[in-house]
């Protein structure tokens, strides 16, 4: 079964790449737009960092760039694979396009989240990587291999955790007819994830690592990369993923039931 | 009271004199080389959408504008509405120059587009009417009286309060027509209004248009591909083909001019010998003989068919309107 799903997903990728190659101008525009977005998001992070230099336990520009770089890597993955699906979930529910997914021999939830791919967004991976390398170079830091593994593991957990949050927020479309602007709210909340940990006081920190796990995308991974203790964040993140997974499974069942009863 | 001034009964509603429209079309070779070449020097060609024509439409007329796609009939309508300017010649509609789009002019005409809707999609028709009330400066009593008349004439009582997106296509066209007539325009342009409607809806809309022309005296210019529309409604037909006005008269004389012939159809009880067939006869299937003949030749033609023997069925009909039109278009093309 999983081999079949994998082959199906590879086919989705092939189709997406072929399409992107055909509509070249659009692809280039999306890629360039993604790069410009990164540049723009560096501005507030750098401005904040300049101010925060003087703070106790403050941080400097290199840390800020590191977090933005890791954030870019995580969000590149999210926006290539998950974003295209969730952004059209609302119209798929309203127009009944969801039916097409439900009759396929692929688990509906997986199909819903993975069917569409946007390879053009993946160009940000290069930019994110460059930012991370530059930041580490400027700070003269060479992370140890365990730190790197911890960071990558944390990012993986963060991506899954945010995906679950995003999916649940998107499911509002099953309950409300005009839930499309929810995506704006989710996108705005995600932006919190590009600031270093020191910028958050206790309550916001709790909120943004559990209910709205934006800080798991880059903030905590950056901490681990710079030598922070991995156990706490990794275990906490795993717990968030577990809770989110259970919530999502239940929510999905309820949502499907509602979708069935609503369609004529 | 509507701000539109009423012209004297003898003044034509539309008067066009040597009216013509042409466009500059740029040609570009395909591919990168073509694009580069086009950048440096573009091949411009003058395309004549409408060759100079003269036209007069009197008040109260119901005119049908016929022609194949790209013939120039839409161009003519747009020139009369003021949407485009003439390349040469003049056109005056209700005494105004349309392309100036003066308020007084716009308040005396109405346009119903078959493909584009004037109604706002997400509110009931009545809300759109209120906006038009303000736009065309109708006072309260006039508005209410007009609304009442239209609801009755166009049978809108059930649909006027329903959001437009929930109406069927036929109901929507009636509401479109009502909205366009609210301000009692002197001239109505109907651009393919029956497109996409089923037979009943078409019939209903045709009745409405006829009533509008009869009871209210509105001059109507109808553009249509549907021959039945034109035949049912228009006393005068303008044929536009390849940018030229090739015919201006009534349906009957169009028929007479182009197809003064009858079609004889005879069904025999056994297939005839090909050698026995009269000149000009064809076989639709092995037992059905078709033959066209002019009025003078009719007697001889029927006699020749009878002589084949074994007659089971015989009919003599007018050549149908679609064939007439097809020949008219072909004829116009041959003339160029």
């Amino acid at each position, binding site marked *: 079964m999983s081999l079949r799903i994998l082959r199906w997903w590879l086919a989705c990728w092939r189709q997406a790449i072929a399409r992107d190659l055909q509509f070249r101008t659009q692809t280039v525009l999306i890629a360039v737009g993604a790069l410009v977005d990164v540049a723009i998001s560096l501005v*507030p992070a750098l401005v904040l960092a300049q101010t925060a230099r003087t703070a106790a336990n*403050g941080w400097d520009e290199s840390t800020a760039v590191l977090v933005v770089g890791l954030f870019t890597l995580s969000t590149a993955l999210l926006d290539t694979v998950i974003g295209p699906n969730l952004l059209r979930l609302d119209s798929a529910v309203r127009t009944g396009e969801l039916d097409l997914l439900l009759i396929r021999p692929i688990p509906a939830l997986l199909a819903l989240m993975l069917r569409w791919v946007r390879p053009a967004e993946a160009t940000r991976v290069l930019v994110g990587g460059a930012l991370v390398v530059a930041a580490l170079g400027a700070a003269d830091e060479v992370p140890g291999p365990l730190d790197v593994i911890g960071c990558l593991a944390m990012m993986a957990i963060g991506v899954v955790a945010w995906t679950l949050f995003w999916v649940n927020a998107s499911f509002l479309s099953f309950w409300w007819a*005009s839930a499309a602007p929810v995506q704006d*709210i989710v996108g*705005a909340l995600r932006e919190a994830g590009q600031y270093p940990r020191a910028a958050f006081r206790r309550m*916001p920190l709790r909120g943004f690592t559990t209910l709205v796990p934006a800080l798991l995308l880059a903030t905590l991974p950056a901490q681990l990369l710079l030598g922070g203790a991995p156990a706490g964040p990794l275990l906490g993140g795993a717990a968030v993923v577990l809770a989110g997974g259970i919530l999502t499974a239940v929510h999905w069942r309820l949502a499907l039931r509602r979708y069935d009863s609503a369609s004529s | 009271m509507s701000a539109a001034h009423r012209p004297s009964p003898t003044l034509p509603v539309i008067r066009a004199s040597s009216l013509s429209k042409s466009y500059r079309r740029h040609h570009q070779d395909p591919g990168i080389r073509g694009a580069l070449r086009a950048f440096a020097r573009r091949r411009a060609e003058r395309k004549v959408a409408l060759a100079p024509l003269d036209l007069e439409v009197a008040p109260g007329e119901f005119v049908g504008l016929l022609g194949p796609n790209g013939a120039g009939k839409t161009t003519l309508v747009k020139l009369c509405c003021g*949407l485009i300017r003439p390349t040469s010649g003049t056109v005056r509609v209700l005494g105004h120059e349309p392309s100036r789009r003066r*308020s007084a002019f716009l308040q005396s005409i109405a346009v119903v587009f078959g493909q584009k809707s004037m109604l706002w999609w997400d509110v009931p028709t009545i809300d759109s009417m209120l906006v038009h009330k303000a736009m*065309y400066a109708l006072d309260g009593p006039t508005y209410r009286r007009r609304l009442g008349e239209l609801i009755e004439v166009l049978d809108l009582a059930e649909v006027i309060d329903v959001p437009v997106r929930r109406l069927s296509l036929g109901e929507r066209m009636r509401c479109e027509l009502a909205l366009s007539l609210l301000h009692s325009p002197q001239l109505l342009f109907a651009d393919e209004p029956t497109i996409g409607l089923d037979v009943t809806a078409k019939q209903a809309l045709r009745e409405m248009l006829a009533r509008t022309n009869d009871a209210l005296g509105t001059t109507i210019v109808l553009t249509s591909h549907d021959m039945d529309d034109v035949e049912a409604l228009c006393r005068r037909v303008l044929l536009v083909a390849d940018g030229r006005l090739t015919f201006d008269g009534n349906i009957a004389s169009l028929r007479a001019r182009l197809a003064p012939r009858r079609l004889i159809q005879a069904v025999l009880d056994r297939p005839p010998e090909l050698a026995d067939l009269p000149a000009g006869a064809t076989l639709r299937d092995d037992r059905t003989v078709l033959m066209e003949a002019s009025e003078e030749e009719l007697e001889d033609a029927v006699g020749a068919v009878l002589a084949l023997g074994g007659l089971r069925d015989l009919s003599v009909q007018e050549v149908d309107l679609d064939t007439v039109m097809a020949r008219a278009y072909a004829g116009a093309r041959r003339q160029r």
Partner: protein
Amino acid sequence: MSTLLPTAAALVGRDLTVTLTNRAWVVLLQLGAVTPPIVSLLVWTGAVARGATPPVPVDQLVTWFVLVAMVSMVTSSWTASFLAEDIRTGGLSIWLVRPCPALLPLLANNVAEKAVKLVVLLPLVAVLALAVHDQVHLPTAPGVWAAALGALACAALLAFVLDVLIGSLAFWFEDVEGVQGIVGLTQRLLSGAVVPLMLLPSEVQEAVRFQPFRFTLAFPLEVLTGAATTEAADWLVMLAWTGVALGLLALVWSRGVRRYEAAGA
């Protein structure tokens, strides 16, 4: 034109009705509008709590973030793509055959939607202001309020006209989206939407002081929060840009409509 005002009123009324039937959508949209300033507030007050010293007084910064959602909404405009589509598909024709300026329904839609959004947004912003009330300082002098409202009205007009100008490019170019994207990004940066202009280094602030996008968001906010640069020169430049934009619109529109040959049937 004696029909102009009643027609405008009728159009606004209709757009109000339509927007009010999509209440849930408006509420969610405004929630989305207050979220970025909330995030910024959390992050900046967090840094300040650790002893960071921003280049402007903290209270000014907090007041900025509380008010930015409101000012941003009032000066927003979304017409460009709809206008471009109408021009491309020939939908503009239905307005050209009516005795009503074709820009009037766009303006009416802008005003009507903003009215509804304002009613929804006000309580949200009030709650936010209450949460940080000891750091929010609104001006007390009525003169300042009058100036702020004037700047706000001018900013809204300028933003609307710029948006319509971009949409009008469709009279000449097939694809307006690319230009729209670039202008949108530039506007986000230069208007202070991404980060308040007063936080940028002073050389950068000087460089961006007189560009038009500043006057679509940052300037009214600066008047309201009492930030540094609100001298006579700024007011003059704002009025000048608005005048230029209006003049350009009149020119572009008349040329554009003349070029417009309604597509299709």
